[in-house]
């Protein structure tokens, strides 16, 4: 690119468009984070239902294991990021927003989990968790202009409301699994497909 070359108005517009598209590439999410998170939630919910049916372990053994795994993954992620030599050569407002959104999400998640352990009630507590997933999806979808997440947020809220009216742990686990599938797994795979298509262009 030459600095002082005379440009036509069309050339100016073309440069602006090309560079804005290049900057937009920094804001693309490959969806892998929520595919993994979604499958973890889905698997644990279904395993809990099977555990209730076949009485393998204590009812929430899989959720306890899930909690430990999540904390270990979080610690591993922080350590990896701290020691990573990979340069972070660009910062976007979008990435900053999601960093804070995810911190807020995990604080709220921890708050509800502690509340469940303090006696809020398992079924009600899980309905609150599903409500929180919906809120995250809505903000994510709106900020990244990703419609599947916005639609998934409203369906997940419907599931959260339904969760308020069920009484069995088994039923709330089915609702939780459905929320993970609709809210994270399906939109996650759609985002991943779109990311791959965009990257290959």
């Amino acid at each position, binding site marked *: *690119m*030459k*600095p*002082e*070359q005379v*440009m036509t*108005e*069309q*050339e*100016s*517009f073309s*440069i*602006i468009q*090309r*560079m*804005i598209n*290049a*900057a*937009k590439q*920094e804001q693309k999410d490959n969806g892998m984070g929520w595919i993994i998170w979604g499958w973890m939630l889905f698997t644990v919910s279904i395993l809990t239902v099977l555990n209730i049916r076949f009485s393998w372990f204590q009812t929430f053994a899989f959720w306890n294991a899930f909690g430990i795994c999540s904390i270990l993954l979080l610690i591993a992620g922080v350590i990896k990021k701290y020691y990573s030599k990979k*340069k972070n*050569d*660009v*910062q*976007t*407002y979008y990435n*900053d927003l999601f960093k804070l959104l995810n911190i807020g999400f995990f604080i709220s998640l921890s708050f509800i989990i502690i509340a469940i352990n303090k006696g809020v009630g398992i079924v009600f507590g899980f309905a609150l968790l599903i409500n929180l997933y919906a809120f995250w999806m809505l903000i994510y979808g709106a900020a990244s202009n990703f419609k599947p997440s916005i639609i998934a947020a409203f369906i997940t809220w419907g599931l959260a409301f339904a969760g308020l009216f069920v009484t069995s742990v088994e039923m709330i686990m089915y609702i939780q699994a459905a929320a993970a599938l609709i809210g994270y797994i399906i939109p996650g795979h759609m985002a991943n497909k779109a990311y791959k298509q965009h990257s290959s262009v």
Partner: protein
Amino acid sequence: MFKDLDPILHSQLRLAVMSLLIGLKEAEFTYIKEKTKSTAGNLSVQIQKLKDAGYITVEKQFKDNYPLTTCKITSQGIKAFEQYVKALQQYLHVK
């Protein structure tokens, strides 16, 4: 009545730098160089001109013993860029 196009922005490389920075919080020199496909020397000169015009801020520091230059668009730069785009639109509507 047509506004004159800002001469600071009406240059390929400077316009590319500004168009890139408008969508980002901040970017390192190496990133801008890669995206604009420019040479380090050329880019340094144009970045300095944008800095002198008050359109961007440039922060120089060291990271792991390597120099690190980070550029960020200023509010004055955003305003100038918006005016430039408006003026461009006027020209294009007439043609």
